[in-house]
């Protein structure tokens, strides 16, 4: 295994994340601006669970669910999120069709069409306005809970790591949700309770991902605390070390979602899966992106101003030098070759020892002059 993938695999890549942080910030800022513009220009397309709408009930004499759907479509009412159900009670079978808010004239037109199709009097087809099932109190409680959640999580991160990490993590989370909402506003996708749940899932994933990256940064900070290494370097080294893990986790999370979207909703025709899978896909990609390009570089900006790191600011070790920094911290283990079998692998052993080494995390870095070249 060699070349680019090999180095990626061994965590020896030398991408300069911190140096290119303004790229990430710039792109994200552009997206956030687009989000706000489309939010104010056209707003979110809220589904019937949020806005309520109209419901007809017709006795199910000869009329079927398909007939009702056809009538709705003939009147140019979108049926993608319409709820058409068969009710079975003491007074016989009825079909209930619930759609979003429409004009009074269309209500009457549909009512007449339904009664004609079912061959009953117009009076027997009821029309009623329906409130949202997702009431205002649900939204209010959820928003309040989210705010409290942010506070508690910040406190936890501040206690477990440090408060600057808490701010960076929360900002990255807000960034993810903002842009996901922006995608919905820009393309006018219908927002349903499932979408909200998907956004919350994204929040959770993004936060989880960020914590894993921060854990590495935190660990490396302690490791380099004795030496003169800038915070940007620490972050660059940490990011390159966890890059493969980030890619793997994101792939593992995205694959089922992609399968739901492509196979489930497009090939097998379960349209209802589409919006949920879409929201998740957008969010998962954003979550992976933001922990690398937003949360960690933000942390570099915050921490770079600290007294300890200020003097070192601006001096980033790149390329070979970064690789060496990552490697010097690894303890060089000279394994006494066992009998027979391992003798053949001495050549690769030597190579390995020179280039890298173990992550002997509890050990202080070896002095650079002792490095074997």
């Amino acid at each position, binding site marked *: *295994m060699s070349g680019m993938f090999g180095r990626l695999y061994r*965590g020896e890549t030398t991408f300069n994340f911190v140096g290119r942080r303004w790229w990430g910030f710039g792109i994200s800022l552009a997206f956030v601006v687009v989000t706000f513009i489309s939010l104010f220009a056209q707003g979110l397309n809220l589904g019937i669970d949020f806005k309520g709408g109209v419901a007809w009930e017709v006795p199910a004499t000869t009329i079927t*669910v398909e007939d009702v759907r056809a009538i709705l479509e003939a009147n140019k009412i979108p049926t993608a999120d319409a709820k058409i*159900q*068969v*009710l079975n*009670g003491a007074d016989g079978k009825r079909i209930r069709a619930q759609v979003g808010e429409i004009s009074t004239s269309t209500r009457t037109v549909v009512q007449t069409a339904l009664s004609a199709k079912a061959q009953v009097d117009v009076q027997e087809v009821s029309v*009623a306005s*329906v*409130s*949202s099932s997702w*009431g205002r*109190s*649900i939204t209010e409680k959820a928003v309040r*809970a989210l705010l*409290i*959640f942010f506070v508690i*999580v910040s406190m*936890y991160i501040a206690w*477990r790591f440090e408060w600057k990490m808490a701010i960076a993590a929360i900002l990255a989370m807000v960034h993810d949700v903002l842009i996901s909402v922006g995608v919905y506003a820009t393309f006018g996708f219908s927002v349903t*309770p499932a979408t*909200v*749940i998907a956004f919350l*899932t994204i929040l*959770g994933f993004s*936060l*989880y991902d960020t*914590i*894993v990256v921060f*854990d590495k940064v935190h660990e490396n900070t302690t490791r380099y605390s004795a030496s003169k290494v800038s915070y940007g370097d620490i972050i660059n080294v940490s990011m390159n070390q966890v890059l*493969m*893990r980030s890619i*793997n*986790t994101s*792939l*593992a999370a*995205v*694959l*089922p*979602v992609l*399968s*739901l979207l492509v196979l*489930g909703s497009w090939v*097998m*025709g*379960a349209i*209802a*899966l589409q919006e*949920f899978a879409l929201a*998740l896909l957008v969010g998962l990609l954003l979550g992976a992106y933001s922990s690398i390009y937003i949360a960690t570089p933000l942390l570099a900006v915050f921490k770079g101003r600290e007294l300890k790191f200020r003097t070192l600011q601006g001096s980033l070790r790149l390329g070979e030098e970064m690789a060496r920094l990552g490697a010097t911290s690894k303890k060089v*283990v000279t*394994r006494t070759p*066992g009998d027979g079998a391992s003798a053949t692998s001495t050549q690769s*052993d030597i190579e*390995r020892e020179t280039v*890298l*080494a*173990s*992550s002997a*995390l509890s050990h202080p870095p070896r002095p650079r002059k002792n490095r074997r070249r």
Partner: protein
Amino acid sequence: MARRLYLSLLGIVVLVGSLLAGNLLAGNVPSLGLDLQGGASVTLQPEGDFTPSALAQAVDIISQRVNALGVSEPEITRQGNNVVVNLPGVNDQQKALDIIGRQGELLLRPVLQAGTLNTDTATSIPGTDTTIAGSKTSVVDTTIAATEGGPGSVRSRGAATTIPASTDTTVPASSDSTVPAVATTAPAANISVSEDTTDPNVNAVLLGQNGEAYLVGPAGATGKVFTNNAQAVINNGNWTVTVELRKGADGADLWNALTTKCFNRDATCPTARIAIALDGTVISAPTVREAVFTGGNVQISGDFSQSEARDLAKILEFGAVPVKFKVATVQTVSPTLGKDSLRAAIISGLIGVLLVMAFFFVYYRMLTIVVVGGLMVSSALLWSIIALISRSNGLALTLSGVAGIIVSIGVTVDSYVVFFERIKDELHAGKSLRSSAQRSFTLAWRTILAADTVSFLGALVLWWLTVGSVRGFAFFLGLSTLCDVIVAYFFTRPAVLLLARSKFLSGRKVLGVALPESSAQ
């Protein structure tokens, strides 16, 4: 060391296996939501006077009542003034009515006399001069006291009024028919007694849950004096129920007027007891220990069992719906999406998970065995819990719920990735698999725990403070996070450590590093 690892591995597999088998034998399967399976639809029509805000509050209370755990995802809408409650997975119309509950007017009525019913259909209702005894055999031994800590609240240690139960207390099978007879003969004074047990303005004889009979006066207050936050807690080793009073004329003032009367053994409340009656049945009849509840907290104690205390708390919490409803229609509803969508979700989701496994196999090679095993254990665990809660708390999986679970499988593999990447680092440094596995787990465990704690905290806060589908989401997030931690510690750790010790992996390529033929012992 190895023995403990085997034990842990075996323990979790056996535990999860028996959970799964138990659920399968009991016939518990996850029930499906309104969109996939349909359910029952109940239309409630408000009666009498009500304000829009009271109606909105009533809808809130009903939705909390049918969705206390937050996992059943009912659909509650208002059509005009009617409230339509769609319950998923309920095909029995009577069951739907049971879930929504009786109309639930909670009345607090002073007890004039109390006694028990026995086989002779003659009742032994003690006279107004109650015996003071510490008898443990008393039927109802409950008291009300202000909770400690409230300003100026002194728990008075007055003698408890208890009613000695005749030892041969049995409840006649047809207790209903005997009640009027009791009512007309028992009281010494001529007290007019109404047969309508729910009319708050007249005296009535009410039955308790265990065969006690109470002669109660006109209601002094309704359940509205309490806020909706009753809790069952353990206090001094006993289950007690605490509830807060609403402030103002409709709350604390009304309550205190009633308790003052009872505490002073006024003519309207000679027994000093207050019956908490829901729809004409006395749920509890505690003795008042305090004249005025200045602290705003009410504590009801007695020899409750845990479930009795919980029930009482639930009734105090949800019992008082501010609007009275009558059931207009009960119907079953068909699913809006149907099973085709479910099949599509499951098939495509499983293909997705298979793809993940294939990718893992290419990348982590033999260690993928552990991932597959771990996923099987956690899926079985998750499935068992979902099936169990489907039965007990009306959990119903919607299409997005199913999709969410499939996605969560993809996300949980992260703990494996974190762990394996650590091992990889150590292996590249030339350590043996055996020594690196142990050390890597210790390090990875810290990371996993930190990340999972954050997820779990989030789930807890969201579950605690929200309602509806957000609460359902929080429940599943918390559940899958817990599963992740459990599986990581009790399955993945011993599995990897044991694999690292065994000869199985020696001579194979693990994580891109060729292991020597004989693994270092």
